[in-house]
């Protein structure tokens, strides 16, 4: 039995107390909403269902496929859980998974568990379900494509949030953290997207009743589309800023009193990535991020379509 820790699980000690508690507060508010919703709308039957689904996510994270050079792609599952079970249940399921990973395997800390749940459970569920719900009523291929893009973005959102929390805790340089986190997870996210698309395609084939629109509509209101879109937009706008123009964010943080240490980068490893036509403006930085997302979206649509044809 091998259990491989995933790179997004922050251990204790890497976030300071203020950031850890702030993340716990946000997580607790969202989770209490999830708990009260679940208590209201779901019957007894849902408790064992969510428990088994949590075990499913845990087990599914062991499914991997060889990519190249000894590395392998595997599933994190936040988006898949939210799409199949609905956003609130998806959040609770991911919370249970992260809690067990921290308590039983020490993969991820206890004090920073709020941050880990936020990054891997709440953000991923909001983006996964929100974007997917926006595509309900479209053709199956489009829905799969959107699910893939949502899965990729959900991983990127988690990575960006992790980088920001580490930086706010004074654990490193913003630019390097975001570039490293986003760079690694851009690839991990592709594996996540491919597996999510293929898993949903398989469920569409064998048990389409589980994913029919009526049950999906019932699991979350239209507000989720807005929430998913807003968080995605935030990721698209913030990522290039944090990695190419960190001074702006550091300025904001110090104005707001987050940072009391003056931490200026004593080196500049990465050239700003901007679109050459627009020059080095913030518009250009945002456009660079948006172009990246667009490319992934197109790839996901093509992948979704081709999977659809074969199945």
């Amino acid at each position: 039995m091998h259990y491989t820790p995933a790179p997004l699980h922050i251990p204790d000690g890497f976030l300071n107390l203020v950031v850890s508690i702030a993340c716990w507060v946000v997580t607790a508010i969202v989770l209490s909403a999830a708990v009260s919703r679940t208590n209201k709308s779901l019957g007894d039957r849902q408790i064992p269902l969510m428990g088994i689904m949590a075990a499913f996510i845990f087990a599914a994270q062991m499914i991997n496929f060889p990519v190249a050079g000894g590395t392998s792609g595997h599933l994190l599952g936040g988006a898949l859980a939210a799409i199949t079970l609905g956003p609130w249940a998806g959040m609770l399921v991911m919370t249970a998974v992260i809690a067990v990973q921290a308590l039983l395997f020490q993969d991820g800390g206890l004090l920073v568990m709020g941050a880990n749940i936020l990054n891997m459970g709440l953000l991923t569920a909001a983006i996964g379900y929100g974007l997917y719900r926006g595509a309900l009523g479209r053709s199956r291929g489009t829905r799969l494509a959107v699910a893939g893009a949502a899965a990729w973005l959900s991983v990127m959102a988690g990575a960006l949030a992790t980088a920001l929390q580490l930086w706010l805790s004074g654990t490193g340089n913003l630019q390097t953290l975001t570039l490293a986190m986003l760079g690694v997870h851009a690839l991990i996210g592709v594996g996540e997207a491919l597996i999510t698309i293929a898993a949903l395609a398989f469920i569409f084939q064998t048990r389409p009743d589980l994913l029919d629109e009526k049950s999906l509509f019932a699991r979350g209101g239209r507000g989720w589309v807005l929430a998913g879109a807003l968080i995605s937009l935030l990721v698209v706008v913030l990522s290039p800023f944090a990695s190419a123009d960190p001074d702006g964010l550091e300025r904001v943080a110090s104005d707001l009193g987050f940072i009391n240490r003056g931490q200026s980068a004593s080196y500049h490893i990465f050239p700003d990535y901007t679109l050459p036509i627009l020059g080095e403006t913030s518009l250009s930085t945002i456009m660079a991020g948006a172009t990246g997302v667009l490319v992934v979206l197109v790839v996901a649509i093509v992948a979704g379509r081709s999977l659809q044809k074969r199945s």
Partner: protein
Amino acid sequence: MHSDAFDRYHHKHSLIHQLDPRIKVLITVAFIISNALLPDGAWVAFLLAWGFVLVANVLSQLGIGYTFRRSFIALPFALAAITVLFSIPGKPIGSFQFLMWDMTVTDAGLLRFVSIVIRSWLSVQMAILLVAVTEFPKIVHALTHLRVPAVITMIISFLYRYLFVLTDEVMRLLRARQARSAASPGQRSGGSLGWRARIAGHMAGQLFLRSYERSDRIYNAMLARGYKGELMTIHPHHFERRDWIICVLCIVGMIIMQWTGRI
């Protein structure tokens, strides 16, 4: 798979094993918070905290190095903190050429990096000890008493109970894939990257459906045995005087750590 494959609980009857699980969870969290509060470079306090961990190890009869041997799990994450070495202004203590960039390690950066790693390393040891001396269902039960919503603790209990069943299921799926992925000598097995990803995705979908259908069966079985929407225990917890004494001693220990960290 055997149900204790993941469980590091040791069947001993030491003082620490017999403590109330709520106290153990609280002390562990308090210890981790105390670590987070210690300032950078508080070496004496770090040493005291390590002493605290060692005493807990000895008292739980696991051997003095028990948690130390298992504490390296969080170490890879130290990579995330490596940039503080270069990014905090201070007296340069060494520099080297990395590809085309000059990297300068500062004394303040090194101090911060080492402090972060030590804090993390101490915290993870305490978490390891908690699982080693408390059965997992008891931890979950303690969480219920500590006001974690029942929905969440019940999901966690189910997750724990069916973890082993579903890992077996995954192992079967993985073995089946391996058995069908024969390659002739000198030839790569399996198709393109997309094909491999699709197969992995189908496995995930398959596992999802099996789990979904299994949960139906489980619910019916639970109903048949009188499930009324809540799980029950036959081991209600109650505090004894010993629990209070240990609790107070630990808090005093942590206050001393904080005090030495600040003088």
